[in-house]
């Protein structure tokens, strides 16, 4: 039994949700629709168990053998498995290979645990929805794709499942497809993602031509190929990294491709919690972290990563300050936190000693962010559930007495997000700030990173401020319910409350458990190909600074929004046009509309016009020719026998003339 589990736990992780999806699609759509969540919960429980087994038993077995026979060891230990020989043509040798190492194990535990809790929440939240089975089928498919993405052993397989998670995101954002806004948001998400995917596929092509192989083992884990390429042609490595980063920009909603994430809130709240907070958007971070062996040789690309991350963090933080839709605040907050992760990933530009810490803390922030952002979104979902699907904060208030469970869990998540001392966000964000300050002081790009550092501090301050603004507007102030809520808003039922409690506990404690104890860092640095890590002592100054920032932000929010709503409105009016600029997302959506959407639409309309008026008319004209020819010949057949006889006569005469002429010339 243990032997079987040892060999098969790896492929069970993605296979269980896939089986659940097929089961729902084939059977649950017809029979037992109301219990369609059961296969998915079972499958995700299996996946979580196998992921934990992977994390605790299978992957650590590979740690002790850091020599050339790693491949055999991995194959024997159940962390490398080629499920199917997919493409084996000429020089292309790509199989469906599942490969687990430290980074993927940590990521899988995060993905499966959050997915399980979100699915349990969704079974309560989506109760009574006519599309109930379709929802769970799409979620199961999504978790399958995400697990395969994390476990992919080569770039091509990663790309396939990169697209697959984008597809599932489209299906789930547009879940209520009768709503035009939801359908438009789903389309926008997919199209903007596609732009990023274009960069990613170009990067993959470039990897193929440069390295000759797409396997992670050969490109990333084994350092010899990289060393060869760096010696010969470092520029192509920078290009590869930049193109891969373009893919990450699309998937992880960084500037300028961040416009899809706030609109993606049209989907059901569990979808926002799972896909747009914890799992899909972290695929970009995972990609850049996975390709760390490539990025550390391309400092120019890392500068771009950090720069775009900083820009995104600031833009999103500014925009979140004035939003009235609670889910949008959380969406922009997600974008901002992803910007933090990328700031950290790019912090090692030119400074290889810092690389291990930079990547480690980016991934650690991703890990803690998954939990506290999921609890925030699920609490928002609980609020929506109680308020009759109203999420505009202007329409309700003072909910802390009516919804105590939601209140506590949201507060836990908000404190974690703001970086309140000793909670999970504190540990991860604080470490990112310390990495950035080290880049500023010790790296070759000091001035650049000082700007980045300043942006990071400002974004942290704004994060604390807008998070508690949302908290206060929702849960404090005078009690107000919208009409859709009915008489008594009911708090979360057990199916929803359980995951909320668990995630809140994770939001509070997981940072402490995994951060200062160096469990996360120590585990992650066993990833093959990871740069050598240095000792990282706790940065007390940075801890103090981030505590101060968090408290100032929270205090500022209390000062403005703790009182009456009127005072808050006055505060907003104080900023006048700046508030509008912030509310409209820095007019970036409008700029996109004017610079990209309108020209493309007029191009499409022109093309359609040419197609209809020119090409179709040409085809019609070609069709007219036989008609004209027929029109000339048709009157010949008029049914009058004497006309036919006359034509016979003409033919005979012609034949006669020909024959006589031939005879005459012959004579």
């Amino acid at each position, binding site marked *: 039994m243990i032997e079987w589990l040892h060999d098969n736990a790896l492929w069970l992780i993605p296979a269980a949700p896939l089986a659940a999806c097929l089961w729902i699609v084939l059977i649950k759509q017809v029979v037992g629709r109301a219990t369609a969540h059961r296969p998915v919960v079972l499958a995700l429980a299996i996946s979580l168990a196998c992921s934990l087994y992977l994390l605790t038993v299978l992957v650590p077995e590979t740690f002790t053998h850091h020599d050339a026979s790693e491949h055999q060891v991995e194959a024997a230990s159940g962390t490398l498995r080629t499920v199917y020989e997919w493409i084996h043509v000429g020089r292309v040798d790509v199989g469906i290979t599942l490969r687990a190492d430290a980074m993927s194990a940590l990521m899988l535990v995060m993905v499966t645990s959050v997915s399980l809790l979100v699915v349990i929440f969704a079974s309560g939240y989506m109760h009574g929805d006519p599309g109930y089975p379709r929802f769970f089928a799409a979620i199961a498919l999504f978790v399958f794709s995400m697990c395969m993405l994390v476990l992919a052993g080569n770039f091509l397989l990663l790309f396939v499942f990169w697209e697959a998670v984008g597809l599932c995101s489209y299906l789930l954002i547009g879940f209520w497809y009768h709503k035009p806004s939801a359908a438009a948001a789903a389309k926008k998400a997919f199209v903007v993602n596609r732009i990023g995917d274009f960069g990613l596929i170009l990067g993959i092509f470039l990897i193929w031509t440069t390295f000759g192989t797409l396997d992670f083992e050969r490109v990333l884990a084994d350092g010899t190929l990289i060393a060869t390429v760096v010696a010969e042609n470092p520029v192509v490595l920078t290009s590869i990294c930049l193109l891969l980063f373009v893919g990450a920009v699309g998937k992880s909603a960084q500037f300028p491709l961040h416009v899809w994430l706030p609109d993606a809130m049209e989907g059901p709240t569990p979808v926002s919690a799972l896909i747009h907070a914890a799992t899909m958007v972290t695929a970009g971070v995972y990609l850049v972290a996975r390709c760390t062996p490539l990025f550390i040789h391309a400092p120019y690309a890392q500068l771009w990563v950090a720069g775009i991350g900083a820009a995104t963090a600031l833009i999103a933080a500014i925009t979140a300050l004035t939003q009235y839709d609670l889910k949008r605040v959380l969406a922009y907050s997600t974008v901002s936190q992803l910007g933090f992760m990328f700031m950290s990933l790019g912090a090692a530009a030119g400074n290889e000693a810092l690389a291990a810490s930079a990547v480690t803390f980016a991934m650690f922030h991703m890990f803690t962010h998954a939990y506290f952002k999921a609890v925030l979104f699920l609490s928002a979902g609980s609020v929506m559930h109680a308020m009759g699907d109203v999420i505009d904060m202007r329409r309700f208030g003072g909910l802390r007495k009516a919804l105590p469970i939601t209140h506590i869990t949201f507060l836990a998540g908000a404190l974690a997000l703001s970086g309140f001392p000793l909670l999970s966000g504190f540990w991860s964000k604080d470490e990112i700030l310390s990495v950035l300050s080290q880049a500023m002081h010790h790296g070759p790009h000091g001035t650049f990173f000082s700007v980045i550092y300043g942006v990071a501090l400002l974004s942290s301050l704004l994060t604390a401020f807008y998070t508690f603004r949302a908290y206060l507007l929702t849960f404090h102030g005078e009690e107000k319910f919208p009409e859709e809520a009915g008489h008594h808003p009911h708090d979360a039922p057990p199916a929803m409350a359980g995951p909320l409690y668990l995630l809140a506990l994770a939001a509070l404690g997981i940072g402490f458990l995994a951060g200062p104890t160096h469990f996360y860092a120590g585990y992650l640095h066993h990833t093959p190909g990871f740069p050598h890590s240095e000792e990282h002592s706790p940065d007390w100054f940075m801890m103090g600074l981030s505590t101060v920032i968090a408290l100032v932000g929270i205090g500022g929010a209390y000062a403005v929004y703790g009182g009456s709503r009127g005072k808050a409105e006055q505060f907003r009016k104080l900023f006048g046009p700046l508030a509008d600029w912030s509310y409209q997302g820095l007019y970036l959506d409008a700029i996109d509309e004017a610079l990209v959407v309108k020209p493309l639409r007029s191009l499409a309309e022109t093309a359609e016009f040419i197609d209809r008026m020119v090409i179709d008319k040409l085809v019609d004209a070609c069709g007219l020719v036989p008609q004209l020819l027929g029109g000339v010949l*048709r*009157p010949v*057949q*008029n*049914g*009058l*026998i*004497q006309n036919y*006889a*006359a034509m016979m*006569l003409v033919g005979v005469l012609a034949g006669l003339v020909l024959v006589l002429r031939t005879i005459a010339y012959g004579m």
Partner: protein
Amino acid sequence: MNLESQLIVGAVLFILGMIGFLTRRNLILMILSAELMLHGVSVNLTAFGRQHGNASGQVFTIFVLTIAACEAGLALALILSLYQRRKSLDIFLWGNLGEPDSVKPAEYPPTAEPPAAEYPQLVPTGHVPKMPASVGTSKV
């Protein structure tokens, strides 16, 4: 009597038959014209037979006449059944195989029907028969 004049006779017969076939509207007269064409050809054959000094032309003519007789019988049977369908010997009634947008026979002006002649009626002996109005009254 040289060859050319015999051939001219044959040609004239043929041409007349041809013109008659192509221009007449009456079914029976069309068949008549076709027979005339056959006769013209027979005259031609006989003339050439005489020129070559053998009887092949005349033998062929006998064949032609035989065939013409059978053909005339068949043609008249067909005309009879056609007449019984439409009660008219006009060939332009049978133009249904033509395309809808071609000139229709109905557009040709129908030939003027001669007015039904009024014939005098037979009366018992001794009485003066009533004369039709078209005939002038006679003084007899």
